[in-house]
């Protein structure tokens, strides 16, 4: 019984809780038991907060008994370990924050707490969200529940693996260049990156502030809408959060696709795309057409420059954001006799190699004499990438494309070759540069049995039409019902 409870979607759990068919404590205990028994094989969790989760579950129970529950009251969730949780260690998968206990909640965590959600714990990621494989974690790599020799994707690999392996009902991650959508695709779950500014970034440890966005990783599209309902909306503590009121995203589910125009960007197919991925995505396009959508070919001509733009912009912002880790106010402090040495020892020993590499690249491209050639140039091409999407959305309501050019690769396969690793983000990165929303939904499997995701993109604040299309696709297929043997 306990094992079956863990397999339910967030919406199913929500419904059972509301009807008092299961108690939040029973549910939380089932998950904690499963995590204790199984997570040793995956390493999805960095911190499991047994006591905190049970306390939240008991509170949720009391609230439901009073008839004051909401849809997330008692729902057991996992949080990417870069979201500040009051009183609960938040490491960013880094030695430098290994013992950091935030004195406040990120806005998304505060909102979920108010809803009565249960936080099972904090999940693994690439250090400071810098990576595509969850191998760059000071706490060791997370493994893919579909094949433990493979990466789960990254940087929100712990979130995706925990959802796929039924180690939580749903999770939050963050997406700077594909870090929600790519692991969702590799683990066969749903992952949404909202429009930039739709969800408050207050309390999200900053990587590249003009690109970072928090979003849900879930078992179904409905679950993603349910979770986005709880976290979307303006926050006076994040001056980049949008003022536009957030609609009820559940209302977008169940709509008809007849006559809806779905753009197919020609640059996202062909050379470099694994044949299994191409076949699964093309079959998905046929499914959408069968549901009444009109497929139109569109072009995003600057796609080939997106990775180059991203690695200039993101690393420049990262080198600036990570300047705050100096060993003075919080975090690890390196041993040293004088202040300057202390900074260097703190940062050299505290940051892992990928983080050091990105800080180096960002420091270089922002340094005197190189700014125009790199940062300014990249920011100009970023404008062109945004305009590509604006032009495409004149002709269609959403775009449909692959999430990643290949299924999950093997552990250590790309670890020694950073540029190759960066290039695996080619289909997700433009979306962050343009600030638009995108979702990954399961759309098939490779010959080796690894999941493949379909990416659906919308214009700014186009989450409702993304949900409409993703949900219609999901209901017409059964890829999301196939689960890893884990």
């Amino acid at each position, binding site marked *: 019984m306990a094992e079956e409870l863990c397999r339910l979607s967030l919406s199913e759990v929500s419904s059972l809780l509301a009807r008092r068919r299961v108690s939040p404590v029973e549910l939380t205990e089932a998950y904690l038991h499963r995590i204790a028994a199984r997570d040793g094989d995956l390493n999805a969790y960095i911190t499991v907060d047994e006591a905190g989760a049970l306390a939240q579950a008991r509170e949720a129970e009391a609230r439901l008994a009073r008839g004051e529950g909401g849809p997330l009251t008692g729902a057991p969730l996992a949080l990417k370990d870069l979201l500040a949780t009051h009183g609960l260690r938040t490491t960013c998968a880094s030695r430098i924050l290994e*013992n950091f*206990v935030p*004195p*406040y909640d990120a806005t998304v965590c505060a909102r979920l707490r108010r809803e009565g959600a249960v936080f099972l714990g904090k999940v693994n990621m690439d250090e400071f969200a810098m990576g595509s494989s969850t191998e760059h974690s000071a706490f060791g790599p997370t493994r893919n529940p579909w094949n433990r020799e493979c990466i789960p994707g990254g940087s929100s690999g712990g979130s995706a693996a925990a959802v796929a392996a039924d180690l939580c009902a749903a999770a939050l991650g963050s997406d700077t260049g594909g870090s929600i959508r790519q692991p969702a695709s590799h683990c066969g779950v749903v992952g949404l990156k909202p429009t*930039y*500014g739709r969800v408050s970034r207050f309390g999200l440890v900053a990587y590249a502030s*003009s690109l970072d966005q928090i979003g849900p990783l879930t078992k179904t599209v409905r679950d993603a809408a349910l979770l986005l309902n709880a976290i979307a909306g303006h926050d*006076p503590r994040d*001056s*980049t959060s*949008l003022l536009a009121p957030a609609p009820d995203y559940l209302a977008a589910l169940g709509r008809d696709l007849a006559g809806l125009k779905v753009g197919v960007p020609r640059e996202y197919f062909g050379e470099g795309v694994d044949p299994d991925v191409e076949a699964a995505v093309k079959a998905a396009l046929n499914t959408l057409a069968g549901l009444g959508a009109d497929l139109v070919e569109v072009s995003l001509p600057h796609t080939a*420059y997106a990775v*180059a733009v991203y*690695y*200039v912009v993101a690393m420049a912002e990262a*080198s600036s954001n990570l300047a705050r880790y*100096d*060993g*003075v*106010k*919080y*975090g*690890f*402090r390196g041993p040293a*006799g*004088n*202040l*300057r*040495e*202390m*900074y*260097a*020892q703190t*940062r*050299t020993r505290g*940051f892992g*190699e990928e983080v*050091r*590499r990105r*800080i*180096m*690249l960002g*420091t*270089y491209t922002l*340094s005197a004499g190189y700014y125009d050639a*790199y940062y*300014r*140039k*990249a*920011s*100009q*091409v*970023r*404008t*062109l990438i*945004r305009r590509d999407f604006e032009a495409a959305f004149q002709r269609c309501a959403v775009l449909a494309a692959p999430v990643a050019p290949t299924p999950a690769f093997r552990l250590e396969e790309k670890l020694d070759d*950073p*540029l190759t690793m960066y290039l695996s983000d080619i289909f997700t990165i433009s979306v962050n*540069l343009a*600030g638009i929303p995108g979702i990954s939904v399961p759309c098939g499997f490779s010959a080796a049995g690894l999941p493949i995701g379909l990416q659906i993109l919308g214009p700014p604040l186009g989450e409702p039409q993304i949900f409409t299309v993703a949900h219609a696709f999901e209901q017409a297929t059964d890829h999301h019902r196939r689960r890893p043997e884990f």
Partner: protein
Amino acid sequence: MALTRDEVAHVAELARLSLGPEEIDRFTRQLNDILAYVRKLAEVDTRETPPMAHVVPVATPFREDRVEAGLPRDLALDNAPAREEGAFVVPRVI
């Protein structure tokens, strides 16, 4: 326009990173690979294109100038590697 080993060492100094000789060698190679790739941006004609630092046209949001509770000093110091008499402690500067 290749990045030299000395330049990499200088950038490390600017970033307050203390890299060993092996890591400087490795970073010199890897950063040059990445920068060579990034230089394909030069192909794009951007003479008429304004740069975009941010996707949301952000106006400075104003709010009422009202005193709100801040983080109490003890809590702010809780995560400090070294503290004394309500202050952060660092190695001597002068």
